[in-house]
């Protein structure tokens, strides 16, 4: 059935509720499919989506040239505590680094404290010490005691440990001892998964390095099993190309390499959304973007500056800090499922509790009685109950109204609609303040940026958020609900390798640095070569993590060996970045912390867009809705997204429906199609 000569690229993103598939043909076709996620065995949903593509779309296995996947398996292993029984081998005297943590607590007023570090990764009995020690210059102070190592490994094996993390002090300066320990483990327990701290995170500060290395070991067997499962399924389906997996910093890696460093998969899903947002925004002519992904329980905020997603060098997983580069996504606990409630003094609050997908908002009719943001949207007339989620759910607006009436409207003495409007105003304020804080904290004025809403809920709140933030332009992707899957097809294949290089910038001679970079690059090239990417497609970028002497946080700045004075250039760039982020620059000496090399092969096709329709669009429908700008219901045009033509101008109040989302255009805003098929919503300038 496959049309002769057509090849296909498939992106599949596993989400909490749905597994999304985007399939792009070389003939320009773009197809989408959502199937229910299979939480206990996520690969089942992937394979059923693939089977659908084969049977319904006629995609022949042999014609599939890219199979890219965004997965939650590493994250879920942590959230559900289903990782391996992990042991740690460490320097004598430092067994308790993981448990001591940094000793500060997150919640100041909570008297019932819980351990702040992830001690569950490896309880004290499973942490073993070996005699060895390097000093702060990398010199051996105490040689490695191999008898200690053998004893430690034997004890861990005996205890039934399933993965070992090796975290020695200053291993990032000289990894010899860690490598030797790995070799001994290899002799004594050949199948034992091992994570070495100098490979996972070669940077100073032992708690942070131990923590991320332990996480890596903890999820490694689970991720390996899962990836092997998916790969086996692909093989059975006749697909012989390597499975590509999205990594947290927004690049793909083939399964065997991704499985080696599973701690880099924690943001696999959200990274796809950010890359998708980047491409959609760029196609519409915007290089500075704030993406806001509003789902059921949370809202994920990310910034893209000058066409590049912001990357941060550490992030949070389940509330624990993990020091691994990732797209800078900040999750806030507000979403469509956020529950509205009254506090003891009678004030309206929204969230952070969410109704989730079970029982879900009251309108789902699954027993949920708490009013949610989605219920408010229904009462305000934004959502057409018959066509929500493609009509699959059959919403019951009377349940929404009843829930809002009982919980909010009556106690406040408001009409149902005014109460629903109140829920929207409160949740929008919360989200807008969060977006503002994320931006300001990175030295960015949101007013200069375009807002790119995604997820099923994003486009409903976009104009209200933009108004709060002083943003004039909104870009709604063609398919905001499956953008994370689409982003998989626009992502580069990418590898990043770093090495500690703790030296003052002024003390470093250029040849020394280029030598060191060459070593790092060689390691990176090994990885990208293993991907089978043609040499000519590989782009290489060098970066330095720099800080002022005496500071302990650093900034990543590009390093250009071809520049006239590369070191001076990097220093100037550091001063500029410091000024932008921290508000001042002083001519104080700087220090190198790490060297980084990133090699990437860009995607051949970018993020798939759907071509705009041609011809005369059918006239829109009409419906009465409530917007905050008017005290009464107003008539709104109801458009179908597919029906919008290139010359259509849609003035708010209007609603644009499509299978995966609903876009609300409030009064004062006008929507039209942009280049690439996105919807551009702009603020009407005052006459």
């Amino acid at each position, binding site marked *: 059935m496959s049309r002769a000569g057509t090849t296909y690229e498939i992106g599949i993103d596993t989400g909490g509720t749905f597994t999304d598939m985007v399939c792009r043909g070389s003939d320009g076709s773009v197809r989408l499919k959502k199937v229910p996620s299979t939480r206990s065995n996520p690969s089942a949903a992937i394979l059923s989506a693939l089977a659908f593509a084969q049977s319904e779309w006629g995609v022949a296995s042999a014609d599939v040239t890219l199979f890219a996947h965004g997965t939650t398996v590493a994250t879920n292993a942590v959230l559900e505590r289903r990782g391996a029984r992990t042991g740690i081998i460490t320097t004598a005297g430092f067994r308790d680094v993981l448990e001591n943590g940094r000793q500060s607590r997150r919640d100041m*007023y909570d008297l019932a404290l819980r351990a702040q570090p992830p001690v569950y990764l490896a309880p004290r009995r499973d942490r073993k010490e070996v005699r060895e020690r390097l000093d702060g210059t990398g010199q051996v102070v105490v040689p490695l005691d191999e008898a200690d190592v053998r004893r430690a490994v034997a004890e861990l094996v005996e205890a039934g440990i399933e993965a070992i993390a090796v975290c020695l002090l200053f291993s990032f300066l000289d990894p010899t001892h860690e490598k030797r320990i790995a070799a001994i483990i290899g002799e004594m327990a050949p199948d034992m998964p091992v994570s070495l701290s100098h490979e996972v995170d070669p940077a100073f500060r032992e708690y942070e390095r131990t923590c991320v290395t332990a996480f890596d070991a903890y999820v490694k067997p689970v991720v390996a099993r899962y990836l092997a499962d998916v790969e086996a399924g692909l093989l059975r389906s006749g697909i012989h190309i390597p499975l590509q997996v999205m990594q947290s910093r927004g690049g793909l890696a083939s399964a065997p390499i991704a499985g080696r460093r599973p701690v880099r998969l924690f943001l696999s899903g959200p990274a796809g959304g950010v890359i998708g947002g980047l491409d959609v925004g760029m196609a519409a002519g915007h290089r500075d973007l704030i993406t806001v992904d509003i789902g059921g329980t949370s809202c994920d905020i990310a910034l893209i500056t000058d066409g590049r997603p912001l990357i941060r060098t550490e992030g949070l997983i389940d509330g624990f800090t993990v020091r691994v580069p990732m797209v800078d996504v900040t999750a806030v606990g507000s979403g469509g499922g956020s529950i509205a409630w009254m506090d003891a003094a009678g004030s309206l609050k929204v969230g952070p509790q969410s109704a989730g997908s079970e029982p879900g908002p009251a309108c789902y009719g699954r027993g949920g009685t708490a009013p949610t943001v989605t219920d408010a949207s229904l009462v305000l007339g934004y959502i057409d109950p018959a066509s929500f989620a493609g009509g699959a759910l059959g919403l019951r607006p009377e349940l929404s109204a009843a829930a809002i009436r009982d919980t909010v409207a009556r106690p406040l003495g408001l009409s149902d609609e005014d109460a629903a409007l109140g829920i929207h105003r409160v949740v929008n304020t919360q989200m807008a303040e969060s977006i503002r804080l994320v931006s*300001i904290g990175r030295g960015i004025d949101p007013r200069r940026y375009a807002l790119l809403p995604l997820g099923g809920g994003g486009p409903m709140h976009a104009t209200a958020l933009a108004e709060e933030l002083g943003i004039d332009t909104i870009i709604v992707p063609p398919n905001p609900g499956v953008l994370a899957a689409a982003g998989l097809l626009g992502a580069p294949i990418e590898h990043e390798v770093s090495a500690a290089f703790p030296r003052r910038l002024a003390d470093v001679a250029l040849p020394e640095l280029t030598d060191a970079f060459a070593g790092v690059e060689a390691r990176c090239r090994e990885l990208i070569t293993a991907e089978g990417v043609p040499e000519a497609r590989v782009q290489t970028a060098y970066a330095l993590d720099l800080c002022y002497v005496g500071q302990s946080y650093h900034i990543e700045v590009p390093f250009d060996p071809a520049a006239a004075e590369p070191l001076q250039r990097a220093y100037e760039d550091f001063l500029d970045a410091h000024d932008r982020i921290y508000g001042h620059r002083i001519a104080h000496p700087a220090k190198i912390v790490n060297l980084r090399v990133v090699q990437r092969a860009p995607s051949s096709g970018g993020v798939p867009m759907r071509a705009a329709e041609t011809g005369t669009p059918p006239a829109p429908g009409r419906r009465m809705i409530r917007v905050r700008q008017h005290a009464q219901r107003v008539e709104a045009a109801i458009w179908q997204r597919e029906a919008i033509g290139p010359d259509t101008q849609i003035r708010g109040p209007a609603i644009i429906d499509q299978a995966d989302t609903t876009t609300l255009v409030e009064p004062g805003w006008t929507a039209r199609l942009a280049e690439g098929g996105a919807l551009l919503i702009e603020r009407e300038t005052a006459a």
Partner: protein
Amino acid sequence: MTSGTPSSLDPITVEVTRHKLDGIANEMQSTLLRSSFSPIVKEGLDASAGLFTAGGATLAQACAIPIHLATLIPGVETAMKTWPAETMRPGDIYALNDPYLGGTHLPDIMVIQPVFHGGRIIAFSAAITHHQDMGGLSAGSVPTHATEIFQEGLRIPPLKLYDAGVLNETLVAMIRQNVRIPDTVMGDVFAQVAATHVGARRLCELADRLGTETATAIFDELLDLSERMTRRSLAEIPPGTYRYVDVLDNDGIDLNKPIRIEVAVTVRDQSIHLDFTGTSPQVRGPLNCVPSGTLAAACFAVRAVTDPKIPTNGGCFRPISLHLPEGSLLNPKEPAAVNARTATIKRVAGSILAALAEVLPDRVPAASSGEMVMLALGGRTPSGAAFVTADQIAGGSGASRYLDGVDVIETDATNGMNLPAEALELESPIRLLQVALRPGSGGAGEHRGGLGTIREFEMLTDEISMSYRGERHFSQPRGLFGGEDGQSARAVVIRADGTQEPIPSKIVSTLHRGDRLLIETAGGAGYNPPAGRAAAATAADLADGKVLAAG
């Protein structure tokens, strides 16, 4: 939409405004941290910003450490007393640091800006920063051996930093001349100004939208709401007077003289009164604490035992009253030294909570270590470069009715981070030999107290000056309802020749190559009798070596 009287305020607008005020406070805080120069702000987060009503009550505050809670209130009050409202002008910004005139201790400078809208003051925008140096006896301006405030640094009474928008060059020159690192200090002061400007600007935008009258009416309403919720929460505490007595080891000067902290907490009529009669008279060393410190501790304790969902603002503090005997540790007379007040505030917060434990057995845990060791080491590296390094070291937290205490964690009034071995050794000729839990230090109980920690340092060069400020060396965190006490802290200098010199809680000394410093912090106390401990929990403790095997 609203007519401006509280009774007719739109409840949705009130809630939206609350979010905006919190957002403004957070943006002020972000600006403050971002624009500051010194590591103590950027990494110790020792800076806070907030908005206050025209009447001086906290409207919204972003604060990273509890010790800053409510701490700006006396500063704002002092400014209001110094300059009556009719004399304040747009563009005025006030500064002060004198503990006896609204401040806390000299390193903390407060910057306060009146916010004008509709021709009158609608609020104050303020920021407090712990500055890296304020002159005085020793670098950092927290000399452990100070006996009067004049030794602690430059005292700034309430003065205009800006007079109607014009910078007070005289004051700036005066500060610059008196501190060791003038560029850093003034950089941090201007970061505070940047933060108060952000607060003032955004508050004006908010008032533009709401109208002056409605805005201030909403501010009042928000305080009333939090007050109502706090009083309702306090009404759930059985009325009565609850007492607690604890002791601090010494003041660092008179080493054999314990310092008594006594509190009587009276809960009655939806309010709480804290009477510190019986507390030691002021001491010679710098552990004295001006009233703002006890207010911060009291506000912290009340926030911790009331409904956590209550939005934090001045309304939460209205039901609190204090009696601090004049001339006592907690209300010292000039010129008592006050720089080391943190240890005192910590213990005051712990004592208030401990007093309430008997009537709030569900909420209040057994005593936590009550200490955070402040360690400073400095000298020259073998290459001759000067180095100074500091570490903050916590003990264990107390067990509660439902949970074991947590090993090695910051509790109550402080929230600092420890120093990684790899950060220490990359910069200083000092080696960390061990970072360990301290087995057996947690008080036994059905729920065990959290363990303290052991940290051992070895000096790799001569002439390293050390200042060690500990606590809980001569007392123990007390167990609750039959739970046992946590172990005391101890610290010892082990000279290269093997001689042991125990540290009497506080010391300033010099260490040389091969000398070791062994620090063991206190454990948290236990809850309920040990006999009730689940067998599995005991087995896990033994397997993990967290308790010492019996016998």
